[in-house]
């Protein structure tokens, strides 16, 4: 049911926490902390989902998402952006660049997990519309 996640995050402790949470849900989590090489890692891993930080060494998350959307195979890849920069203009810019979901740090664990499930379900439905009976859980109020 769960698949493969590439997590681009330079803060080791945050990466550790997300890896722990997603592993418990059955995800295989690849952590990568450098921005400049992130795209090739994503291409190579062909994940079901990407979780992306915004402030990264080498290349910013904003540039990485643009790069991702330029690649045809990755055009519909769900990307969850998690950032400590939570201003409205960052959100707008990120959505314009092609981010699927935008969340600010610090986050609630349940919220992140709900978002990941949600994105995954949407992606599945997009790939295989007949199997679209998977419930879409909204957990926005949580946290």
């Amino acid at each position, binding site marked *: 049911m769960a698949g493969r996640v590439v997590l681009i995050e330079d803060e080791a402790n945050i990466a*550790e926490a997300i890896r722990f949470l997603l592993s418990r849900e059955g995800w295989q989590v690849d952590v990568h902390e450098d921005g400049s090489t992130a795209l090739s890692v994503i291409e190579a891993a062909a994940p079901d989902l990407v979780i992306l930080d915004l402030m990264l060494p080498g290349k910013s998350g904003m540039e990485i998402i643009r790069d991702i959307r330029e690649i045809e195979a990755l055009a519909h890849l769900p990307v969850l952006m998690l950032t*400590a920069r939570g201003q409205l203009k960052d959100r707008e810019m990120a959505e314009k660049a092609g981010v699927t979901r935008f969340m600010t740090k610090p986050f609630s664990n349940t919220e992140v997990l709900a978002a990941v499930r949600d994105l995954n379900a949407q992606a599945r439905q997009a790939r295989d519309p007949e199997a679209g009976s998977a419930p879409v859980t909204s957990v926005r109020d949580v946290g």
Partner: protein
Amino acid sequence: MTSLNLLAMVSIGYVSILFAVAFWADRQALRGRGARFMGSPLIYTLSLSIYCTAWTFYGAVGYAARSGMEYVTIYLGPTLVMIGWWWGLRKLVRVGRSQRISSIADLLSARYGKSNVLAIGVTVLAVIGVTPYIALQLQSITLSVAIFAEADPTRSYNESGMVFWIATGLACFAILFGTRNLNANERHHGVVIAVALEAVVKLIALVAVGIFVVWGLAGGVEQVLARVDRSPIGQWQVDGGRWTAITFLAAAAFVCLPRMFQVMVVENEDERHLRIAAWAFPTYLLLISIFVVPIAAVGLELLPQGANPDLFVLTLPLSQGQNGLAMLSFLGGFSSATSMVIVAAMSLSTMVSNHIVMPIWLRTTDAFGGASVSGDVRSVVLFARRFSIAAIMGLGYAYYQMSGGGAALAAIGLISFSGIAQILPALVGGLFWRGATRAGALAGLFLGFTVWGYTLLLPEVAGGVFSAATLSNGPFGLGWLRPQALFGIEGLDPIVHCVLWSMSLNVAAYAIVSVLSFPSPMERLQGAQFVHVFDHSAGPGGWTGSVAQSEDLMIMSQRILGPDEAQSFFQAALKRQGGPGPLPEPTPTFLEQLERELSASIGAAAAHAMIGQIVSGAAVSVEDLLAVADESAQLLEYSSRLEAQSQELSRTARQLRETNQKLTQLSEQKDAFLSQVSHELRTPMTSVRAFSEILRDEPGLTPQEQRKYASIIHDEALRLTRLLNDLLDLSVLESGAVTLNLSRRSLSDILDHAVASALAGADGPLRVNRAGEAEAVLVETDVDRLSQVFINLIANAQKYCTADSPTLEIAVTETTDQVHVDLRDNGAGIPEDFQAMIFEKFSRVTPERAGGAGLGLAICKEIMRRLGGDVAYLPGDMGAAFRVTLPKQAKIEEIR
């Protein structure tokens, strides 16, 4: 037989003709026509003949009969002035025009800095001097009528009643033609034409009587000369003193008498007329005087003993039955008297109203807060003129009544001349001597006038004022103050005595006081304007007719208003006037409108001066220029103030813009800073929250996992604390609220402490090589803060040095007042791109490793700045190197 009725009819007819002529001339002048005829030099010359009053018409013959040839001096004075001093008169006329002088009092007032005191003095003097003279004219008319009354005993007449009516009639004439309107140039064409006509009549009358006497009675020129030789006239000795004095007085009076000034200067149409008058007027005088001696000689011989020689001109023809000739002669005398009275009253009224009545009226209306509207003032001025004429005539009549006629009046002529002559020094001096001052003029005038009154007027006219004792022994027995023998000089003729003393004291006072006193700026300017009038004012000419004036006005208006506006203004005026011409007539209404229109553009004073210059040909006066200058200065000052204000405004605007820019920049920096702070705080908070939720929510954690996650939370909490401490530290340092704790310490002590602190508890194997001896230098500084900088730099080396065996080299160098401490590690160093920004807040070169927030170097920079030193990155190939520079003596930077 001539009846009084006929005389009355002829007189009334004659006066009616004079009225008609004056009325016609005024009408013509108002329409701007007939100027060529009326403005001729002939009319000017004839108008000057009001010098010849009844006193000269009748009195000259009497004078000759009594005193021989001395009467010639009365004609000699003016003749000498006209021939020998016409250029001086030309200057007088030029000044009169360029300064728009209305009377002799006005002239002196203008010359001496617009002094009204002086004008009042001259006016009073003139009134005192001229009033008896007017009375003399009235008397001459009475006497001449009486001659006819004697010849017509059937009728009786009321003498004083007649004089009253004559005086009233003359006043009416003067009011009617002298105050018709207020001309800027004070010219009265009607009066001048009437006076010229009367001049012709009196000349014809006297010449006719003379021809009758010489060829009708005496039988030719030779016979006349023989009779003259036989008569007492031939035996009179010439008194040199009296001749000189009277010639001088006549000359002075010719220039200074108000009525002479009126016709000669004020009524002058063109100063070139003086060239012709210079020979024409003496010719007139010659003609009118040539028959005086024959008439006197024949009259003395033919008429009975005791006949009044003053009336020979009338009685000789009457005695021969020549009633027609007598009538003509009467008209001549009547003309002489009336023309003098009219012009004298007119000129005196101008002075009285301008210098006495108007100032008083203005002051009282001011005191009562009355509004002085211009139209209002105009009617008040006219009323004041008319009132003054009536008052002067009334004075003359009253004087005539009081003196009771008789011989007392005969002497008046010369006495009056002597009084008026006191004006001469101030007048001539004013024209030719720039140094003359108001004080000098006042002193001379006052002294001369006083001496004249004391030595001549009071003893001769007001008999009884001085007792016989005073006259012979002087007042209070002071012999040297005897009125007719001042300072012990006896045996002089009273006239000569008076002229000698009054004129010499007058001139002396005038000169001395002028030299001793300082003229006001206005006096200086006016003095220059008068003395150098030919350099400043326009030449003769002008008066080329109203069309030319309109053209000039048009040209001037176009320059000021612009062609279109001027064109439409003139067209509108033309339509209002309904005239035929291409341009409107320069009527007073039109000029007033134009002046208002121009005032809006160039200011009132300038507009007035410019229009005045074109219309009256008057040169711009100093007063006008000063007013223009004042206005320009005000405008200039106003505009320079505006300019200064606008400069100030633009400066303020620039400052505001700069301040705004700075504030915007600061605000942006603040936003960026806050955003960074928020980011830096959120990052550890994220870990804390995530792991605490894991610890709370996940039941199946192993004890190792629990411990691990708890210690992550602990680390991140410490990181948060450090960050907050750094932020607080930086904020305190930047705001300058930090107190520095200065002390003297050796550099090696400080480094000892810093190295120990930095390496304590550190897991890295950093080796620190100290500088040894070189560190033994005393510095005065805040030891803790300096340690903080060293600790930060050493800790950085420890954190970021990537060498296998990380080493930090410390080197110390000294200059005269500074110590450099270089800390260089053997790592990779900082890439060149980042070197410029490492001291910025939240700048981080490498990915997060040691949990620093990127504030350390910013804090170091701030500390060193406050300690009066600096910390800088030393670019180079070998490792990261920082140089800390600090002063040996504390040089604490002041709070920003």
